[in-house]
């Protein structure tokens, strides 16, 4: 495959077998500065920026702890994708559900999850609701945060379960929605089709958000799918498929908001694809040597936190000190989280058979 430079990209809608590498953005949605369509309240901007910054700071710290050998198990980071989960969760009501892996950490934090409790799981500590049974990568806490439990690492397997939660909402005539955040790789397994098919037939309130970050582990999307966009698959379900720039939190909110409204109106599921980039390896064990330098550079300029920060300091009129205050608060928060998490108790070996079955 030819890796074209971004300057050489053809116009949107050009022939499919042109030199355009889908890992670079289509010029139709590409941008290096962002702004909302309409004014956004200052406290909203602050909470979104804070969630994204908190996630980035957490991940930087997590990577360091991993290299120091202080973390149990493998580490998977969502660096560069923070705008998507933040934008999605910012639109949910308290009784809506969503699911992500830890690449959507910013969404967990925006929802109110304490960084200490996430860090504690990476340390293998005894904290509810998992009590040391599951990796830091996964979080499920329905009563606490509306974060739904899911399966193994296959991110396709929670499309059927998303349909099932949505089925329960509809069964009980509740105006709730389920947002399933998943990845480009998850659109290959059958579960993706089976779940969306079922949801579309029954017009269930499911919103599937695909973070297309260019790679499934090391395999580029060109070897995962014969279509240029994941959203191109939407017509198979007779549902809307939309494509946006996932590093622009305002765009994320605009597209997902429409999908959530549709779901809440009882009109069924939507497929929303966001182009983004996984700025680190699949896991921290992965040096991502398979990613061309120019692709990394392209996306570094479009880092979601950088874009939001530049908007805050530009169009939103914040001072450097105001942004720096949030950065400093996040840094202190994460330092404290690590300290507190390390001090949490380990699960007791005699608890190992507890709760295999519900009462």
């Amino acid at each position: 495959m030819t890796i074209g430079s971004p300057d050489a990209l053809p116009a949107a809608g050009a022939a499919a077998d042109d030199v355009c590498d889908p890992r670079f953005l289509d010029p139709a949605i590409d941008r290096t500065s962002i702004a909302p369509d309409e004014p956004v309240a200052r406290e909203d901007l602050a909470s979104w920026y804070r969630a994204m910054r908190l996630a980035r700071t957490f991940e930087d710290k997590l990577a360091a702890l991993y290299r120091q050998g202080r973390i149990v198990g493998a580490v998977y980071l969502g660096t560069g994708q923070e705008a998507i989960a933040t934008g999605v969760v910012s639109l949910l009501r308290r009784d809506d559900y969503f699911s992500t892996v830890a690449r959507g950490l910013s969404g967990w934090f925006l929802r109110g999850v304490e960084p200490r409790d996430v860090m504690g799981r990476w340390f293998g500590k005894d904290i509810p609701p998992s009590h040391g049974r599951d990796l830091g990568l996964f979080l499920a806490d329905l009563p606490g945060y509306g974060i739904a439990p899911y399966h193994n690492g296959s991110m396709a397997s929670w499309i059927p379960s998303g349909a099932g939660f949505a089925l329960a909402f509809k069964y009980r005539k509740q105006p709730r929605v389920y947002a399933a955040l998943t990845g480009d790789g998850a659109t290959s397994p059958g579960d993706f089709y089976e779940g969306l098919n079922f949801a579309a037939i029954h017009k269930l309130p499911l919103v599937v958000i695909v973070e297309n970050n260019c790679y499934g582990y090391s395999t580029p999307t060109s070897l995962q799918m014969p279509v240029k966009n994941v959203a191109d698959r939407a017509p198979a379900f007779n549902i809307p498929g939309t494509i946006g720039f996932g590093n622009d939190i305002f765009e994320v909110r605009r597209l997902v908001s429409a999908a959530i409204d549709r779901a809440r109106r009882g009109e069924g599921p939507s497929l929303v694809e966001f182009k983004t980039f996984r700025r680190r390896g699949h896991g921290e064990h992965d040096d991502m040597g398979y990613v061309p330098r120019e692709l990394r550079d392209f996306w570094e300029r479009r880092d979601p936190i950088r874009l939001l920060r530049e908007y805050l300091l530009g169009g939103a009129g914040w001072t450097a000190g105001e942004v720096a205050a949030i950065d400093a608060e996040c840094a202190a928060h994460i330092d404290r989280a690590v300290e507190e998490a390390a001090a949490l108790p380990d699960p007791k070996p005699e608890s190992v058979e507890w709760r295999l079955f519900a009462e």
Partner: protein
Amino acid sequence: MVITYLEAISQALRDEMRRDGDVLLLGEDIAAFGGAFKITRGFLEEFGAGRVIDTPISESGFVGAACAAAIEGLRPVVEFQFADFIACAFDQIVNYAAKACYRWGTPVPVVFRGPSGGGFRGGPFHSQNPEAWFTHVPGLKVVQPSTPYDAKGLLKAAIRDNNPVIYFEHKHLYRRIREDVPDDDFIVPLGVADVKRPGRDLTIVTYGAMVHESLAAAERLSKEGAECEVIDLRTLVPLDKESFLSSVRRTSRAMVVYEAHLTGGFGAEVAAIIAQEAFDALDAPVTRVASLDVPVPFAPALEDAVLPNADKIYRAAVDVLEY
């Protein structure tokens, strides 16, 4: 009232749906058609399309959906058209349903009904007994009724249980086995075996369709002076170990009879438990009678060669008794 095994399953479903508005059914062709075996005939008319849901042919999809609906508090009962097709939903069952409570503390009150077993010329994909695929996975309960009474009581207990329960109903029993079953509400608790025939000379541990073949063999042996105790496990998980261990301690001889393939079948686990926990009581090796380790073939002469039956059980029992 005297009803068939099939009618007992149908009654249990109808009773539970009338009793609890959170019980709903998902499966292929279960609504207007009433299911491939007519278990849910008339259900669409009584309960409506919202509670009797015809699914697309996509087991993984509707099983995943059912698990999530269960986590949200509904009590879905999923019908696999044939237990063989449960393979298509394996991941959702073993990685989602089975582990959710252990991982996150979320109960998953879902029932998977699998019409299983051979003996009616269904061939390799409509005759299997896949219980051992699931007894190996912590977090799943596995039920295998042999009589109309047990079929009704165990299904009601399964629906009321807060855990994923796989309920294997043997197709060959559907219309062949009938008995008087109370109309009123009763359950057969999960994890309690049943002595289907008392005896002092040999313990036969079995479940599902093989209960009837074992009883036929025991009847023949009785005429020859040997009294077999036939223990129907009824549920494999949780397992009522004491039922057969205490029996073996009295009879000193044990056989395990199951219709699934011999190697790695659940009966192997039962045999191992007996060998380990009742070794001192044994006067003969624990013997298994099960299907040959080949796919269940179609042609009658071949299928009969593969499946265990009363005659094969009888001959194995004679060997154990004469050991």
